[in-house]
């Protein structure tokens, strides 16, 4: 829900680019990065994690220089990178389980074949 709200807010704000954005959007973006870290993002999606952090830093600097419009876009881009990092981490974990189970099945197959010989199909 939150990203959608932010998108709406930003789109509204984008029309009037000179308005200073709600500082709450930085808190939300930071929370997204934390969620990505918790999901294993640093391990499974380091590139996206770096994008998320860098874009958030640049957005904060943009605020200091009153480049509000760019900052709001960058916050969005930071968040979507955190979201992608979460999805990539989950997918990587699933892939890892697939590989583990495939290996385990191959071992089981080999051991059963050794035990029962040709009877095992």
């Amino acid at each position: 829900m939150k990203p959608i709200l932010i998108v709406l807010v930003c789109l509204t704000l984008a029309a009037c680019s000179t308005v200073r954005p709600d500082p709450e959007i930085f808190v939300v973006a930071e929370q997204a990065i934390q969620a990505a870290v918790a999901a294993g993002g640093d391990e499974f999606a380091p590139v996206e994690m770096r994008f998320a952090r860098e874009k958030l830093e640049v957005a904060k600097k943009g605020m200091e220089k009153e480049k509000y419009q760019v900052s709001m876009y960058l916050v969005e881009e930071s968040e979507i990178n955190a979201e992608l990092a979460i999805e990539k981490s989950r997918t990587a974990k699933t892939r890892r389980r697939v590989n583990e189970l495939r290996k385990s099945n191959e071992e089981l197959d080999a051991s059963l074949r050794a035990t029962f010989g040709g009877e095992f199909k």
Partner: protein
Amino acid sequence: MNRTLTKITLIMLLTLLSACVAAPKKDLALDRVRGELDDLKSNPELAGYAPLAVGEAERALRKAEMASGDDLYRSYLVYMADRRIQIARTMAEREQNEQTLDKLEREHSEMLIQASQLEADQARRDAEQARLLVATTTEDAQRAEQEKEQALLNEAESARAAILSAEEADQARRLAESRASEAEYARLEADLASQQVSTLTRQLENLQLRETESGVVVTLGDVLFASGQAQLVEGGRSSLEEVVDLLQTEPNKKIRVEGHTDSRGEAAANLLLSEQRAKAVLEALVSLGVAADRISSLGMGEDFPIDTNESEDGRARNRRVDVILLDN
């Protein structure tokens, strides 16, 4: 004029530049992102997965394509569309992996089920083998038992053969003796014959008598013994008195008591029983006055029936003790 011309030239140049540089650049970025989405949708392994995320990516891309406004805004939208496509792709990959995971888990349990079935089969075979082993052992035991019986039988057989050969020798000796005193013998025979005729005439009424090659056979029916027993029944002894009278009419003849059974039951057991019964009759005869040195007993088992073993009457006739007055 000059200034106007310069102005027009400048505008044209700017328009050209903007057409050449700005617009195609934007299209290239968008084209690339559109290509990514098309690739995801047409990927045979991923097509159909994560439909909601793909739809969201599609909307983000369309928004970028339709956007008018500053470059910053449009490149932001293109970037967002690109990330949405990445998200959709990674979710599609995950869904596909989850399906593979399901399949692998199914295979895993199928293997375990098959393994347990095979194990059960193996156990069944082992049990069968064990049963066979037990059966074989039992068979061995039975065979040993049979061999023992056979040995017993052979022993009895050779004992009988020994007795028979002794009797043959005896007979030969007696023949020689009788030839030596032929005259005496002839006279004795005449005496005995006349005695025999009268005695036998008397006894024939009560006793079963048969003439055989060995001599006169007195058959004692199966009334002397209870079933399976080797002891004379009460009153059996007294019924033997008539037999003793008959035997004493031929004091010089050897007597052989033969036990016979029907064919029911084990041959070895029957042989033993017939032996014991013959012996019991012998002892009874001796106690009734028959000289112990002229009488012998022998178990013949079931091998010498005088009637069929297929009927009860026949079997009753086969269960007997023969007392044979042996011809010299």
